[in-house]
């Protein structure tokens, strides 16, 4: 490993992005090393630790936590296939096998070789057993299968935030959509191609029912992500306007707009900003949550790739409003092209004086940096994100006391907002809060981008006024209905953690009538208005806007197992119920699918989920248990069918104590061991 002066200069530059704590540069440095050397060697770990004045364990902790980092080389061409629900429904398991075959990787051999965890082999973390990922959920990352000639390697990864174009794959840093496993030509093409689908211009006119605000320029003819194009169409005008307004007035406009966060929790944005004291003495930080990794969600990706300046403008306005002088865009590691586009956009904005010192002569200074994640879903949770940005494992923090607005990044007040939310800010400044609030419905204002994937004819993203369409209109009209001859079975309405809704269910919805009185009406799945409150009233949530549609060809136990695998793989492992429960639920559904389901499994599944929800550090606890709770309750018969075996008698102990005593060479003589280096003996 040679560190050239140029490489070290690059490293030193990156470190300047983190004026408060060098440790924050851990992840960026690991990315630089992996890009340069192909993997993270022990030497690299030691070098980085030394450079950042950390202990080597601090870096090892990261390398083993973030799945994108490898401790052994991959092939020259490294392929990542999305394994998660929408892609799996689109054939990604088959796709992985076919790509492996095309690359000369003996997939059956990998499948047969269950090394690693099962034997307690210490080398398990480097296991090249691909199937281990599926069966045992490899500890930190995804086992990589490398072809014998070292040319190709392949791994399964979790949702790449393009579920509407399933199945998807990445070839090195390039991204490919709709990689049909049945089209060998397409597979050959992506293995050879140099052009990524992520940056290929697409032109797609919006559906007539759409109300394009944030997505106004997405897939638009003549549009590019360059600043000149952005300026041509009135870019950065809202920033100019905002800088003439008092900060509190912007916060007030946002409060009036009724904007609710688009990242999943739907928390009032104005209220969140209101937590920052106008006379705050500590520095305030703003973080854009661009981790987009809730399965079924694919909207931030397009803003970043196609309209990055809209995001930057929204961010700079937001920074001004909450008086943040330093902001980060935490972008998921699997968006390498997105990160580059943002870097370029930032440089352009800086060059034009929209960013940096004394922005547009206003006296306001603001700097924004891009920070890349490395494949861990939990970095989307805001406190996990903050820990990750501080250069640590993304362990969410307990709240209280660590509410980001009080004790966030570097223990300072911090605002974390989703990409879409921050883009909305620009439009609120443009329209005024009251005007914006006229979009959508009361308490559910504005537009939302709904991402539809799964079994519909026209999956994709649709920006709609919140609550303007019903589930039925969304699926049957906007998305072109189900595939021919298929019937609707279920819908997950807000990202894979939202509780599933079953076709044929009846819900009771309380609504305010024209005369101001409340009335209750019974509705079906198709009647549910697509807004926060209605979906919550129907026992699920609007979440991140990811709508996954399943038709009657889908097996609900298999579906839940796919979701369980995602959550078992993504649990950060910090708190007991989620760490143990998420894997347990996955082991049960695994066993059920393998034919080993016992009578009490559905009941145990439910009770395990019940024992997680509400008892964990972060909302991942709910995210991983709601699917199980809802699937088992709503598709009881299907689960019972998989759970026919009688419950076996209690398991015998795995090993008997005598064996272990012999194995561990247990010494029983006092003083037989030397305890290591000691201080000089006292004599009294």
């Amino acid at each position: 490993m040679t560190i050239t002066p140029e490489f070290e200069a690059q490293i030193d530059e990156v470190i300047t992005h983190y004026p408060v704590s060098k440790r924050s540069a851990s992840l960026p440095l690991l990315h630089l090393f992996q890009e340069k050397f192909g993997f993270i060697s022990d030497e690299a770990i030691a070098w980085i630790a030394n450079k950042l004045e950390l202990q080597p364990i601090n870096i090892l902790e990261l390398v083993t936590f973030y799945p994108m980092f490898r401790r052994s080389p991959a092939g020259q061409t490294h392929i990542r296939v999305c394994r998660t629900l929408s892609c799996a429904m689109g054939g990604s398991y088959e796709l992985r096998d076919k790509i492996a075959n095309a690359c000369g990787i003996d997939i059956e051999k990998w499948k047969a070789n269950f090394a690693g965890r099962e034997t307690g082999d210490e080398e398990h973390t480097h296991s090249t057993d691909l199937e281990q990922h599926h069966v045992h959920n490899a500890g930190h990352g995804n086992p990589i299968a490398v072809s014998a000639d070292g040319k190709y390697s392949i791994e399964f990864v979790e949702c790449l935030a393009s579920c509407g174009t399933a199945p998807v794959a990445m070839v090195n840093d390039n991204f490919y959509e709709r990689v049909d496993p049945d089209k060998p030509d397409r597979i050959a093409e992506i293995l050879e191609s140099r052009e990524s689908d992520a940056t290929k211009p697409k032109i797609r006119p919006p559906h007539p029912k759409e109300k394009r605000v944030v997505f106004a320029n997405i897939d638009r003819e003549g549009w590019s992500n360059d600043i000149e194009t952005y300026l041509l169409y009135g870019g950065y005008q809202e920033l100019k306007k905002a800088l003439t307004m008092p900060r509190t007035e912007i916060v007030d406009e946002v409060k009036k707009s009724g904007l609710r966060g688009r990242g999943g929790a739907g928390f009032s944005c104005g209220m969140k900003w209101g937590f920052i004291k106008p006379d705050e003495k500590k520095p305030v930080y703003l973080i854009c949550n661009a981790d987009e990794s809730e399965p079924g969600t694919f909207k931030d990706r397009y803003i970043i790739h196609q309209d990055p300046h809209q995001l930057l403008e929204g961010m700079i306005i937001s920074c001004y409003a909450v008086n943040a002088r330093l902001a980060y865009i935490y972008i998921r590691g699997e968006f390498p092209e997105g990160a580059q586009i943002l870097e370029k956009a930032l440089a352009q904005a800086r060059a034009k004086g929209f960013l940096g010192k004394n922005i547009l002569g206003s006296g306001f200074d603001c700097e924004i940096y891009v920070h890349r994640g490395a494949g861990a879903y939990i970095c989307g949770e805001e406190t996990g994100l903050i820990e990750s940005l501080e250069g640590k494992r993304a362990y969410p923090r307990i709240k209280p006391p660590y509410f980001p607005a009080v004790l966030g990044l570097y223990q300072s007040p911090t605002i974390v907002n989703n990409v879409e939310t921050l883009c909305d800010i620009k439009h609120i400044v443009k329209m005024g809060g009251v005007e914006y609030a006229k979009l959508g419905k009361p308490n559910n204002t504005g537009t939302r981008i709904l991402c539809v994937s799964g079994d519909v004819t026209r999956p994709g993203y649709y920006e709609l006024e919140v609550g303007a369409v019903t589930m039925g209109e969304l699926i049957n009209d906007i998305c072109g209905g189900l595939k021919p001859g298929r019937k609707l079975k279920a819908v997950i309405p807000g990202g894979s953690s939202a509780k599933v809704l079953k076709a044929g269910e009846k819900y009771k919805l309380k609504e305010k009538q024209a005369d101001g009185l409340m009335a209750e009406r019974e509705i079906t799945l198709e009647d549910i208005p697509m807004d926060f409150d209605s979906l919550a009233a129907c026992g699920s949530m609007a979440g991140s806007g990811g709508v996954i549609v399943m038709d009657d060809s889908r097996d609900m136990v298999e579906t839940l197992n796919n979701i369980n695998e995602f959550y078992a793989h993504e649990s950060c492992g910090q708190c007991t119920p989620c760490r143990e429960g998420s894997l347990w639920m996955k082991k049960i559904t695994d066993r059920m699918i393998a034919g080993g389901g016992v009578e009490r499994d559905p009941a145990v599944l439910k009770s395990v989920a019940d024992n997680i929800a509400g008892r964990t550090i972060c909302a991942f606890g709910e995210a991983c248990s709601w699917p199980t709770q809802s699937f088992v309750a709503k598709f009881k018969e299907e689960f019972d069918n998989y759970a026919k075996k009688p419950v076996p008698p209690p398991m015998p102990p795995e090993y008997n104590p005598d064996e272990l005593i012999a194995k561990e060479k247990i010494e029983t003589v006092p003083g037989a061991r030397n305890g290591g280096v000691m201080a000089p003996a006292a004599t009294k």
Partner: protein
Amino acid sequence: MVNVQIDGVWMQFPKGTRMIEACTQAGKFIPRYCYHPKLSSPGNCRMCLIEMGMPKMGPDRKPVLGADGKPEIAWIPRPQISCAQDIAEGMGIRTSSPMVEDCRKGVMEFLLINHPLDCPICDQAGECRLQEFSVEYGNAQSRFLDQKVKKPKNVELGPRVTLDAERCVLCSRCIRFMKEVANDDVLGFVDRGSFSTIACHPDRQLDSNYSLNTVDICPVGALTSSDFRFKMRVWFLKETKSIDVNDGLGCNITIGSRENIIYRITPRENNDVNSCWMPDSHRLNFKYLHNERRFLGPQIKTGSSLAPVEWPVAINRAAEQLKKYALTSSLAMIASARMTNEELFLVGRLAKALGIQKFDVLPRVGEADGILIPADRNSNTSGAKLLGLTGERPGARLPEIAEGVRTGAIKALLCFEDATRCGISETDLAKLESIVTMDILPNKTTALASVVLASSGFAEKRGSLININGRLQRLNRAISAPGEARDDWEILRDLIQAVSGSNGIYMIEDVFKQMAEEVSAFAGLSLSKIGDLGVQLLSGDGKAAERLDADQPVAKTPTA
């Protein structure tokens, strides 16, 4: 004071009390794994979940009062952890509602599904929180039918600590201790989710001199002491509260022994001295007590070698020899700043009776480690100063004594240290006409001695010591001295008696009594009044401290 309702009863606690501590003080123990009062609170084990509520607020933003005039409580529907939040005015806590019981049961089940069935061979058995709580809160029957996660077992994390990762409950206490207390960020988690495993970087070992504290605070048998491993079931151990004698701080300790053998020493919480911690070097430094070369009785020189004799013979021989040089400048004495106050007091009397002019103690100075170990490696320098056995600069007179021995001005030496460590060469020592020494193990001085008085080690005797901060603390007997070896104070008493007649001392309490009469700092105290946590005797400048707690040392909150 803050008013809190715990399980329906209103109580008061000082502001800043953690909820979990308030409950403990109210007699409602809350099970916990990750919480440790001396470390940060990550809230990761979720064992301490309770139901919590805050006063219900009326439309006037004032608490709504119930029929009893107390605030009504609005209970939060989700369970809350009690280890990371302080109590607040009007807060309600339920420690045993059905929801709380259900939470504990759930967490216990989760912790056990991947836990090995190792109890029969696990060192922690008997003091394992997991074992303990599973009896109290666990399910009788496991519902887990699948493969357990396999993790590394029997890993040497460092020279003194062995890891069984399968038993680890991932509470992160050990990581936090190493980072926050030992200032050596050497432990961490690798992998994630259910596969998370505690580890060191392969290039770095857990070799801090504080590593064994991680074993103490590990709530389960994941970290075990390589020294203690598999030696003894903890429930057989007799526990004796005492203090460490390896330096001037005097960490409070618990000595675990069985049938006169010490198996381990663990730190005992004392917030005025060592918090909950102690250095490895100190806790493992007890094996010399079981050294087979220990003196099993007094010996006197016959011809060119030492031979065992009965105690009266030895005492008389020693008195006879010392008297020969008494009241002359040819007799010198080297006392020890590791002796107890009682011993030093008697040594002082003996010196007075013999008219010894030249005396001092051997100073032992090392580098302070910035954590617990001070520069002074003697356990009772403060006592030696207070009782007049040395001056402001301990050891200042040793060169004079060494010179006297070298020139032959000094002919006899009463010695409570190995004189060759005090600047006297072996050759010079050999020139002395008489050496009376008291020790537990042979050394260069005992080899040349006329009389060797076989005494007791720190765990074999009682007495008091004053630490560098002026705190008076108590040694207790855990085991008895081997063979005919005797308590140091008894030997000294008999020697004084043989030199100058009866002295009215029959018990160690009598020594303390006489000392308290003569030395004002000890006035009003007795060995029993010192208590388990000691008494602040001297203030920083060595003067008598104001003693508020002389009679009843306040018991501290029990530790986790």
